[in-house]
């Protein structure tokens, strides 16, 4: 029976409505040698959307280093995988769910977690941790509080049910994210090296098995269309494309899929994410160089009268696609049944290289499989340095009036500790199960989370650990995207190093505005270049990542936000280090040097209401030596605590060590810089460590061999933090400023989620 194609007059109009450009439509006609059918057009339009095809970013991403001895799987699969020693491998990836979350924060964030977790167990790894990187407008409107509270509840609601600990993350509140919040979710999984699985279909005659939830109209054109268009008032119309997550179904999927892989029953496994069945099936087929023949009437549907194209592009959650040999079908379905999951044969692998979709006997789509995944156009977008940069960078913070009395500086320190961008995040992580699986050694609240490596369930524990941190200060990226992206990297590296982890590899989530605007694309390109240079200097590859464009509202782009998720390795997890001051009399040492760098600082924002100046400078060589120094010092046991200086500068870092340890400190200000710079400058390349006095010499020696400045600046003890003559605050004052901020802001009204009222 011949395929029913669209009318040649109508097809281009529909193509444009579906988000394709006219020349892209022409290309489809070229590939097919005819006008496409309705189903084909839908499938191409989604696969060639920005979200699925990376058509604007693909070239720039080639700047990233992706190789390394320990890389088992680089970008291109569902997640990157690195070898962490003793036969263990870690799979990880970060992904955005910004647009769905702006419409419905609870479900948007929840399904974001669900999606990234599926990417992990698809690789054959058991998900063992997740992190969340969040951006909202300032919390002074009910809308922002609603988004923030909803996203946190959704992340917890999903992850907690799965039994995957949420061990860290980050959050910033800036006006620039007011109309377009960012919800980036990162997940990590652990496996034995030999269990690494790829989503590569193979073996003509093999069966295509759809596992998990039923397929509905929810999310048709969801993530992919949402994420490929600007976000403005029209967003309201897109509401029905929001999906409700079912973490229980996902938990069953994790268990069933890992059991299937463990028993070696599958040829291939892939998850259904953006663009649903279309994306999952065509990627599997094109990786394997095979064809697929799928009958949509076989797909279990939860709604009546669904059209073939609806079934092919539905983004219904909690579904997986597997390829099995006919011999293993019964055994595979038995495993699914045991876990209470539906599993249905919906098609076969063929040797034609074509992706054929039928509705019963009728063929509704027939195209070369690889063209969906690989033949999307690749663009070279125009770039132009944004005009605003010259102006903001010319600003000199020293032209402002700064506090200089002890009283005023102490008050400023407390003001910073209470700033929503610095204050304690316990209100967030206490809503997340961060301990399940019993491997979280450093809980949220430290510089990086540290996890033991091993399978507690089977008692296969190793001595190793991993440390992980997600970082990006968008303000720095706004002021200088090249440097800002590097700071995201070096901060993540310092955080991981402060716990004893040696930086091993990163994932990223690049959140930007509309790439078709030359000024936006310039910031993107600069950020990628900055990040790539940082990775190269550290010898740390990028193994996975995600690009989220069109983060704009009413034509205004967010701050460039290239979030870095960095994973480090600890050879002996026992040696890990934490940030809190430990013992009276310990020497406090500053590694690195403070410069007068108040541009883009939290101080400038909180005290003067300004986002301007140049961000702090980055010296990649010094940064790398600093992290190596700290990792070595921690491993040799001479360091008792370590904490890096980030937002709020040295004074805030010291205060955080005091609050965490419940003990004070007396510190000398170095004295060559203005007091406000000594305290609040955000110079990079600095870590505060403490050592027992008898180890001071050893640390100095070690620092000298790394060429890192090493200055004893004070002593732990008492119940106040005294910094020279510049600041003097009590532990209680610091705690009262630092601890309650988020809860207070959120509860200034009740920003309840309707989901939270649900007691179903």
């Amino acid at each position: 029976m011949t395929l029913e194609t669209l009318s040649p007059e109508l097809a281009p109009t529909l193509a444009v409505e579906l988000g394709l450009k006219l020349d892209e439509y022409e290309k489809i006609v070229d590939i097919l040698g005819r006008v496409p059918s309705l189903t084909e057009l839908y499938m191409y339009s989604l696969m060639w959307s920005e979200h699925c095809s990376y058509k604007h970013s693909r070239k720039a991403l080639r700047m990233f280093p992706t190789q390394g001895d320990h890389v088992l799987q680089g970008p291109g699969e569902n997640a990157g995988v690195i070898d962490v020693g003793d036969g263990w491998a870690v799979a990880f990836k970060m992904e955005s769910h910004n647009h769905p979350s702006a419409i419905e924060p609870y479900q948007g964030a929840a399904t974001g977690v669900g999606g990234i977790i599926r990417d992990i167990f698809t690789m054959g790894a058991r998900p063992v941790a997740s992190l969340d990187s969040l951006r909202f407008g300032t919390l002074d409107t009910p809308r922002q509080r609603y988004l923030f509270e909803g996203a946190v509840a959704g992340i917890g609601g999903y992850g907690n049910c799965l039994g995957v600990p949420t061990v860290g993350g980050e959050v910033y509140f800036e006006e620039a994210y007011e109309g377009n919040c960012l919800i980036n979710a990162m997940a990590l999984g652990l496996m034995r090296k030999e269990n690494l699985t790829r989503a590569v279909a193979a073996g003509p005659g093999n069966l295509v098995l759809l596992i998990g939830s039923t397929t509905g109209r929810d999310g048709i054109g969801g993530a992919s269309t949402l994420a490929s268009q600007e976000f403005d008032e029209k967003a309201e119309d897109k509401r029905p494309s929001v999906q409700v997550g079912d973490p229980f179904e996902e938990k069953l999927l994790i268990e069933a899929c890992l059991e299937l892989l463990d028993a070696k029953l599958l040829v291939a496994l892939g998850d259904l994410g953006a663009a649903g069945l279309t994306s999952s099936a065509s990627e599997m087929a094109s990786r394997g160089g095979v064809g697929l023949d799928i009958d949509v009437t076989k797909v279990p549907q939860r709604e009546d009268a669904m059209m073939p194209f609806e079934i092919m592009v539905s983004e219904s959650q909690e579904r997986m696609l597997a390829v099995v040999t006919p011999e293993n079908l019964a055994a595979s379905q038995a495993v699914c049944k045991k876990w209470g999951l539906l599993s249905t044969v919906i098609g076969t692998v063929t040797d034609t290289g074509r992706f054929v979709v039928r509705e019963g006997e009728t063929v509704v789509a027939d195209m070369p499989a690889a063209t969906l995944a690989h033949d999307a156009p690749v663009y070279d977008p125009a770039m132009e340095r944004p005009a605003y940069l010259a102006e903001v960078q010319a600003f000199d913070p020293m032209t402002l009036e700064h506090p200089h009395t002890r009283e005023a500086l102490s008050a400023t320190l407390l003001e910073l500790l209470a700033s929503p961008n610095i204050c304690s995040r316990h209100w967030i992580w206490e809503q997340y199960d961060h301990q399940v699986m019993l491997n979280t050694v450093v809980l949220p609240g430290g510089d990086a989370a540290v996890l033991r490596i091993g399978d507690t369930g089977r008692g296969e524990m190793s001595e190793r650990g991993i440390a992980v941190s997600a970082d990006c200060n968008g303000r720095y990226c706004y002021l200088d995207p090249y440097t800002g992206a590097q700071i995201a990297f070096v901060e993540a590296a310092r955080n991981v190093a402060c716990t004893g982890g040696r930086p091993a590899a990163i994932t990223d989530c690049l959140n930007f505005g509309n790439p078709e605007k030359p000024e936006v694309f310039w910031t993107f390109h600069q950020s990628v270049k900055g990040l790539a240079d940082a990775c190269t200097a550290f010898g740390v590859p990028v193994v996975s990542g995600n690009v989220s464009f069109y983060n704009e509202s009413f034509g205004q782009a967010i701050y460039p936000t290239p979030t870095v998720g960095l994973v480090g390795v600890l050879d002996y997890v026992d040696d890990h280090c934490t940030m809190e001051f430990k013992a009276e009399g310990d020497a406090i040492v500053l590694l690195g040097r403070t410069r007068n760098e108040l541009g883009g600082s939290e101080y400038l924002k909180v005290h003067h209401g300004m986002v301007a100046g140049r961000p702090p400078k980055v010296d990649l060589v010094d940064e790398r030596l600093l992290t190596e120094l700290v990792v070595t010092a921690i491993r040799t046991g001479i360091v008792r605590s370590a904490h890096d200086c980030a937002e709020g500068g040295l004074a805030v870092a010291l205060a955080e060590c005091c609050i965490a340890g419940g003990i004070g400190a007396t510190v000398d200000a170095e004295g060559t810089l203005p007091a406000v710079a000594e305290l609040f400058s955000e110079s990079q390349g600095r870590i505060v460590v403490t050592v027992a006095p008898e180890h001071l010499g050893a640390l100095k020696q070690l620092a000298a061999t790394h060429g890192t400045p090493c200055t004893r600046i004070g002593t732990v003890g008492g119940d106040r933090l005294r910094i020279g003559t510049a600041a003097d605050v009590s532990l209680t004052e610091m705690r009262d400023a630092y601890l309650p901020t988020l809860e207070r802001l959120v509860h200034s009204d009740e920003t309840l989620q309707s989901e939270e009222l649900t007691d179903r």
Partner: protein
Amino acid sequence: MRFGVVTFPGSNCEQDVVHAVNHLGFDAGHIWHGDTDLSGYDAIVLPGGFSYGDYIRCGAVARFSPVMSEIVRYAEAGRPVIGICNGFQILTEAHMLPGALLRNRGLKFICKTVHLRAEESACRWLDVPAGTVLRVPINHNEGNYICDDETLARMRENGQIVLRYCEPDGTLAEGGGAPNGALDDIAGICNERGNVFGLMPHPERATDPMSGGTDGAHFFTAIARRVAEVAS
């Protein structure tokens, strides 16, 4: 000493319990919710998690699992049955323990380490002196214990209140200190006979100094000791 740890669809702390128990030097095995053979187990643990997604009510579906009728019989024989978190919720749904667990008062999930005070109780599976303060993590959305006045009075009389949320020094907070709003600061209760014990905190998360402290060890060692006493 062999603990049997039940897995329901959606359980997510069963591996943790097995690991903790092994770490303490005892044997443990997994029991599938569809199984009915409990022979060879000296104590049964219903672990934490979200059985059946916690949909309808926490524990409402799990209590109909085939294994549950065997567990009722096991408990009737006076043998140890412990429900942790979701396990506690299942035990109340199965009416093996009185009362019910509602949503936390603040409607927020809570994961943090709390202080618990051991009460003078009939519970046979906790052998620290009454008044002992233990630090153990909690991790739940529905830990707000409730029962009617009559039941509360009866539980007090029978010594069925085993653990209460308290301040670090063991005193009870004025006006209720339970983070979840639980009646009378109740964190754990037992049946009249003292052999069925349900608690919201997760002792398995506090059995290893590297991850969460060691106060949770008491719970498992006490069972092992009592079981050994009975056997000898």
